[in-house]
């Protein structure tokens, strides 16, 4: 059982949760994720660890409402307990001193990006972060990003905050202006696809963090498998980070939609039960 110590909404559908998980807080590194299960009847879903405090024994997760489980999680309150939290899972980010690192985060992608920004900065790199959202309220973790980045560029699709334009426009701006040695792009699959097409034009080595469907998260089921450079890899144990140029993006987008119908139906059922309680 893992207690929710803090919950703070960034916007109507996105919140930050601070959760008690002392062992994970101690052993986790940038790039790691956890699998959570809310209750006896819950499903197992992966969430990237955005930050941790080993002394307090807590981890930070950023959650966006996308289906039943995330909706239920966002409806939980401080003091409530999550039945299962297991991790840290996946391979940690490979951090080294390369020079200038461009870190691009789309929407809640800023959350998994944050520990990577921090780690690259601590390894002595110049770190430029581009964080983006459709509108102002969907741009998250700006202050934290500023703390660990040499520069932060904020982009919004509608121009309601920062510069108007897509995340790729912000990335181009940096690449045009100065030498970038490495890029990390994290966000929705479609954003990662176009983000890495941008860096590919300039031959900048680029990593992405894939958020595929998972069940156990320990290599046991293969639900998360994806073709990387023509070979099938398991995101949970071989990733979650991969060379962006090797990822089969069309397959990634296709596999993300495997349960679209079931997910929509389940969400509609959930909304009905919530309404009947009200």
């Amino acid at each position: 059982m893992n207690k929710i110590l803090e919950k703070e909404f960034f916007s109507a559908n996105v919140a930050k949760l601070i959760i008690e998980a002392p062992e994970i807080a101690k052993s986790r590194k940038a790039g790691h994720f956890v699998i959570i299960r809310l209750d006896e009847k819950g499903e197992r879903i992966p969430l990237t660890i955005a930050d941790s405090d080993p002394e307090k024994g807590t981890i930070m997760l950023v959650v966006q409402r996308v289906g039943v489980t995330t909706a239920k999680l966002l409806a939980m309150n401080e003091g409530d307990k999550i039945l299962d939290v297991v991790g840290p899972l996946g391979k940690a980010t490979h951090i080294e001193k390369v020079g200038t690192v461009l870190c691009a985060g789309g929407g809640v992608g800023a959350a998994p990006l944050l520990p990577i920004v921090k780690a690259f900065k601590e390894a002595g790199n110049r770190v430029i972060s581009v964080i983006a959202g459709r509108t102002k309220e969907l741009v998250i973790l700006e202050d934290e990003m500023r703390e660990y980045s040499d520069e932060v560029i904020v982009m919004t699709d509608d121009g309601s905050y920062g510069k108007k334009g897509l995340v790729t426009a912000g990335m181009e701006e940096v690449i045009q202006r100065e030498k970038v040695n490495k890029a990390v792009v994290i966000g929705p699959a479609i954003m990662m696809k176009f983000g890495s097409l941008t860096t590919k034009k300039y031959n900048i080595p680029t990593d992405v963090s894939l958020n595929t469907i998972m069940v156990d998260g320990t290599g046991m089921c293969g639900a998360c498998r994806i073709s990387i450079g023509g070979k099938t890899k398991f995101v949970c144990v071989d990733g979650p980070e991969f060379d962006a140029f090797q990822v089969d993006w069309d397959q990634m987008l296709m596999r993300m939609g495997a349960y679209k119908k079931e997910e929509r139906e389940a969400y509609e059922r959930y909304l009905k039960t919530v309404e009947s309680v009200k």
Partner: protein
Amino acid sequence: MEKIAEYIKKGRPDAWRTELRKSKKAKERTSIERVKMPEQDPAIRATNSLEVNLGLTEDMAVLEATRCLDCPEPTCTIGCPVGIDIPHFIKKIESHDFLGAAKVIKQTNALPAVCGRVCPQEKQCELQCFYNQKLKKPAVAIGNLERFAADYERNSGKMSIPEIAESNGIKVAVVGSGPAGLAAAGDLAKFGYDVTVFEALHEIGGVLKYGIPEFRLPNEIVDVEIENMRKMGVKFRTDFIVGKTASFEDLRAEGYQAFFVGSGAGLPRFMNIPGENYNGIFSSNEYLTRVNLMKASSEEYDTPVLKGKNVAVIGGGNTAMDSVRTAKRLGAERAMIVYRRSIQEMPARVEEVHHAQEEGVEFLNLHNPIEYFADENGRVNKMRVQKMELGEPDASGRRRPVPIEGSEFDIDVDLVIVAVGVSPNPIVPSSLKDLEMTGWGTIVVDKETMQSSIPDIFAGGDIVRGGATVILAMGDGRKAAAGINKYIQEKVKAN
């Protein structure tokens, strides 16, 4: 012939057994027909998840037990990887001491209700039975009797706990709560160790929970056996991945003196053929985990599972049979086994193949998939298969399947389950740099003590074997427990 252990021979001259043996002539015993296990009707059971085998009644069990001749050289015991005193417990059943029978089994087997259901007895104890070897008659139904004794004890509410040595306070960690880990934990607890079992998933039981379906092994039965281990003092920690949540080094610092790694073969294999990553194509591990562990077929549970009208399961092992019979129960109109060899070479238990056939599963033997096709949403809708014929025997001794050129044809499918085997799970090995591994990704161990190249780490089950049975894993767990005991006692003496 291997030696029959002394403890098995020792009890035979006891007065009660001698008297029981003499109470009936051998001819009287051998003239009894093997008692048939009652089963649910195939047409009904294919629509529910209740157990297929219903268990023997008391009368049936006593009658079956009467068949056993209580041989002076009980060859059946050679076939048991955990060394159950088979004639002893069967004679207890014949004398109506059913609780006593369960006690005998539990001296060497921590999970009798599980083994009585899923062990391939026809390849082990029953294969070696005198009836089978010499009389050319069906063997004594040792497995069914084991199940009877365990179920009787459970239903009686008088579960016995094996004798446990006085606590020595020495901490030992077991990594993984599948059959290997549970067997090791049971024996280590009996030796008096302070045992903690660490499990990555949220439930204890490993493959017994996520893999084997309810209709063959109800989770409730596994839970009762686990509860019994708790009573023996074994501690369990779920959601804990040794090598990730904490390292072996962290656990050594917490005082753990030795480790048993039974982390299993949790890494499914695929065939690497075109289209294999389309939606609707699962590993058997994923399919069975969603249904068995996550209860995806119930609307009350949040985990979904894709359903199919035309389901193809690739492979011929027990996992393939479990998958195809599960698909049938979830409403498949056509449920097929696609296997590249013939039915004679199938690794699945005869009973499972037979049950699947009764339930209306189609067998496309000597067929192999070579490509998958999908609709515009990426959902699989067709499978191209090639016919095979059998050539010369290969390294496994089975005749090698050879493709027949030009024999390809397409089958409509909307769900495919790939059950072609598993590889060892890489998480533990990758967290230990100095651990000696084979090219197959299994841990190298001493065959007697199960000790790895790192002295305080022992291993067994599928992480060593690369894919075997519940009972072989349990045999490894028991051997390793003895190995750990010896290792720790020597270390204690040296200090």
